[in-house]
């Protein structure tokens, strides 16, 4: 969720997508400005936080980089429940990953927070020759489903910061508090699930 206090916004953000789409690579590029060619499979989910300054506010993202492996799919609701934003990542060189992304969008539309800011990221845009999903196709799909679309490349860093900035700009400015940054009391964790359903 996002909380506004002196224009400080805390926003929980979740990355979803198929195995090997590049979720971890995107996050690592964004948070640590690192890229490794052979990023290992994520286990469970990895947690990151990163602060961004946009025009009118400071946004602190609490990022959940989920594992794309099939065995972790049932855990996804744990992470997207209560999220203020989601990036659904697919690999532009892999049609199946685009289909998988559409499934995630459907699931979020059905189960997720209705005010969630959703971004569709066509990753690996640097691999021009291997492209299987055209920008137009993805763009059309995104417009039809109320997402915004960007082609990204974690390798070249193209559009990586931009997609997070765009999310930060689109976040509702007034939202119920959830997980204030810094110190979280033990039982706060319980509240997250509850607060998730009451975003105004």
């Amino acid at each position, binding site marked *: 969720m996002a909380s506004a206090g002196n224009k400080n916004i805390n926003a929980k953000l979740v990355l979803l997508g198929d195995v090997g789409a590049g979720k971890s690579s995107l996050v690592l590029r964004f948070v640590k400005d690192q890229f490794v060619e052979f990023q*290992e499979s994520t286990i*469970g*989910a*990895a*947690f990151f936080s990163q602060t961004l300054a946009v025009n009118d506010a400071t946004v602190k993202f609490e990022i959940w980089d989920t594992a794309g492996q099939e065995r972790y799919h049932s*855990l996804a609701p744990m992470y997207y429940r209560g999220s203020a934003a989601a990036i659904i990542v697919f690999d532009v060189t892999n049609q199946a990953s685009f289909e998988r992304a559409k499934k995630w969008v459907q699931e979020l539309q059905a189960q997720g927070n209705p005010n969630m800011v959703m971004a569709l990221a066509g990753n690996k845009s640097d691999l021009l020759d291997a492209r299987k999903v055209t920008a137009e196709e993805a763009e059309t799909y995104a417009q039809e489903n109320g997402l915004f679309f960007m082609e990204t490349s974690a390798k070249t860093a193209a559009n990586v910061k931009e997609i997070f900035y765009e999310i930060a700009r689109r976040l509702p400015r007034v939202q119920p508090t959830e997980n204030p940054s810094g110190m979280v009391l*033990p*039982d706060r964790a319980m509240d997250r699930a509850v607060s998730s359903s009451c975003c105004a």
Partner: protein
Amino acid sequence: MTTSDSSSSPSSSGTESADLNPSSDPGTNSERVQSQLESMNLSQPSEVSDGSHTDYGGGDDDAEEEEEVASANGNEGGVSNGISVREDGLAGASGEEEVEPSSSRAEHPVEMEAGEEPPSPTSSGYDGERGSSGGATSTYKADDASEDEIREANVDGDTASQHEAAWLPGKRHVDEDDASISWRKRKKHFFILSNSGKPIYSRYGDEHKLAGFSATLQAIISFVENGGDRVNLVKAGKHQVVFLVKGPIYLVCISCTDETYEYLRGQLDLLYGQMILILTKSIDRCFEKNAKFDMTPLLGGTEAVFSSLVHSFSWNPATFLHAYTCLPLPFALRQSTGSILQDVCASGVLFALLMCRHKVVSLSGAQKASLHPDDLLLLSNFVMSSESFRTSESFSPICLPRYNPQAFLHAYVHFFDDDTYVMLLTTRSDAFYHLKDCRIRIEAVLLKSNILSTVQRSIAEGGMRVEDLPIDRRLRQKPSSTSNQGQDTSGPERLRDVSVGTGGPFGLWHFMYRSIYLDQYISSEFSPPVTTHRQQKSLYRAYQKLYASMHEKGLGPHKTQYRRDENYSLLCWVTPDFELYAAFDPLADKAMAIKMCNQVCQRVKELENEVFLQGASPFSW
């Protein structure tokens, strides 16, 4: 050359002597003539049997295993080949029975059934016995040359895996399948398959390409099961094929590494445990719903976990000692980490562990919750082998097979530096922020008492060294008042110059001490002449044999064993409190070796506050 002494007793300690199979270690260097003689000699009980013959010699199993290997070692001449199948004694009244189905006199010792289905020792031996035709092995072509290469697996093959440092995450040789000569040459294969014959995991090669091979294994297992029996071990020349059935999951190891059946079976158990750690036992239900269920996608991305576990079978004594080991640390430091971990557990965390690589710095558990050393091994293997845990804080479901194989726990993992990490386990899936908070509290304590740098120093200094063991009088001089690390006598106190290049005093090369009551062990650092990874691996294999023979059921409790071959003199001493395994120079004097062992025990007792985690209350299982 190869002598063994089975009737020794450390008289000074007053323990009883125990008699053991005077079997030699048919190590890689064993002289051909010697081993051939031996195989002729020892093999007789099994070789006389032709055709189907059942031998109810439960206690001789170990001896027979050694013979099998020995005969395979005698590479030439008309040494006949024994293929034996060990099955559960479901039919037999007493324990295990040895079935000696077809010890056909082949021209080449290892060749199966005159090369009809050569590269599949399993099925050919099996078929030979039961007369069921080789349908299961139809994927193979007769190929004498490749049969030879299987035997010579140590010529090249997986030399890379013999060096701990050279272990690379992930599966290698994916391009191989059962038709590749290189695949067949591998010394040790592991397979996991479903009871419908679908491949789940293979150490080498692509699972999907091995569907035919998996079906073969499944056929063997189910054929025996249909007879109301269970296949445990098939021996084919130098190869052992070990089976383990866990509900709908079958595990198979095919090995020519000369390890004991017991240990290979233990390895399959751990492999199964690792799978349960990732998926829980509820995976069984998928097979109830759909017998043809394909499990491989569920294990996606875990190749590194399995390959690192398999690798640990050759370097980590915890895999056969079923105990864990601690990083040597000053007592006070371990106490203070222990107390913060205890606090954390009191706040609703099930287990809190501070680890350094595969060693425990400290750990704590909620009341009445106990962590089995095998679970600890699998957990640390899981975390250490997955690069993803190092990038940030992770929260992942895991299952502790010995704690509760049915349910997931949630693990918070955070690396403080390259080596040191904390694991917090809880039953609550929504506890991430609480665990993160706990980690911050733990980190504060670690920073305050500078524990991380002490840990780094302890890694650099290593554990106990045989060179540092005091000789007789010095022992009295220096009772361990040094509250400094387990690495006690550093610098001037060292006796290195006395014994440089020859290990410790009186030819002591290495030892392992396992405290039964603490479920922990301490192992000395490797020092010359046991320096290369190959030598270390070979020493571990010798220990494994020793361990297996000491823990063998049916032979009664052994207390001591002294065994000498061309590579080592090995001394094992088991008491209700501890087990000691020590390796000496093969020329070491037995009486002195026994004295040395007493000193090692005394030294370990002096240092126990530094090398062991004391008073971990939840660990009293």
